[in-house]
């Protein structure tokens, strides 16, 4: 489209636009695992994460984004998880974190 090289382009907004995001997958995930909604964002999972200590993988952030309908890259991020289960052992809300990883991967494999 652009015929002129301006040397810059319109920056994509970092905004999470709930109105535009398709929340269907997110709703399905929460329906299957309602306990995910009880996350209080304490970050214990990420702090203990075996993969997170080696990469920038942040389980809490990824599932929070997924809940907001931001699916791009979530599957790839979740694939960094080793499923070792430390986070599940520590989660103060008792969230089945490994189940969450597998569920998100299953639901968002196409994204």
């Amino acid at each position, binding site marked *: 489209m652009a015929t002129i090289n301006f040397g810059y382009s319109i920056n994509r907004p*970092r*905004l*999470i636009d*709930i109105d535009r995001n398709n929340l269907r997958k997110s709703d399905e995930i*929460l329906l299957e695992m309602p306990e995910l*909604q009880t996350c209080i964002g304490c970050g214990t999972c990420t702090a203990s994460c075996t993969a997170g200590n080696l990469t920038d993988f942040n389980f809490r952030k990824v599932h*929070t*984004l997924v*809940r*907001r309908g931001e699916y791009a890259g979530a599957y790839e991020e979740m694939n960094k998880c080793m499923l070792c289960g430390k986070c599940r052992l520590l989660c103060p809300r008792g969230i089945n974190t490994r189940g969450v990883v597998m569920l998100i991967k299953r639901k968002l494999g196409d994204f």
Partner: protein
Amino acid sequence: MKKRVAIIGGGVAGMQTALRLKRTGGIEPVIIEREEELGGKVRNWHVLFPTFTPAGEVLGALRSEVAAAGIEVLTGEEAEEFTDRSVKLRSERTIECDAVALCSGFTLFDATLKEEYGYGIYDNVYTSADLERMFSEGRVAMADGSAPRRIAFLHCVGSRDEKVCQRHCSKVCCITGVKQAIEMKRLFPTADVFNFYMDIRMFGPGYEELYREAQQRYNIHFVRGRISEASPMMDGRVQIKSEDTLTGRPLRMSVDMLVLLIGMRANDENGRFADKAGLTLAQSGFMQSRDLFLGNTESPRPGIFYAGAVTAPKSIGETLNEGFTAADRIAEYLGVK
């Protein structure tokens, strides 16, 4: 000769204090209430957290006990100033007494001061108090009468906000937000409910459990971030912006209803009362107790006592307990067993 105690404010704190004083047998309390009936702020509440007990049940019990005890009640009378021995009313009348219990509670924060949320400007912005009124009336709907499909609650409106000179935490709004979100979800099961919060402070018994239930059972979304502004949309709905701080990304969405969980602020007349009676105010503008640990219901002046939210935001349960404590301290002060 019975001792006489003037109780300024006929809300739950005032009624509870009066009841306890009356039961001593040696004290004759008199309640001075500005409104035409007893009950204070609780009158405007539908059900109470965390048990969803109808507010009328609590209020009804207290009122009928007050009536049964034959406690003297002056309604439609407002205290102008007072000392430990007398209360001067706005109607120029003066009540002579042996001690005063200040139970005048708090004032609801005026949400129009947070201009950016458009309360009073956009049709579908409400306060938690508006919502309670709608619950009581049995009709909750958007301004055009339709059922909301997406509702946002904003916590800490007029609390913990130096921009409106309210530095304190109003304490009860968090759990009120959770309670009202559940009520909305019960009324509109297919609606999406979002709570925008800075911190969730679940200090009381059963509160955290209710919070968890709101999340897990009612699928209420909690977004950590304060709404920065609300704007009107073409169709009368409201667009809100905040940061989803847990993902570090700005967030925008449109909602059918925006509910502002307004805080408790100090009464304007606290300053006047303090000046005239030689009392002190806390930084928050609420009355300062003699001591936060051993003299919580006492003022620095002998003969003047506090109960309830006049000293700080409190839940109804705490207020009722303070009524007992204040009455016991008054009885002790007056030498009545």
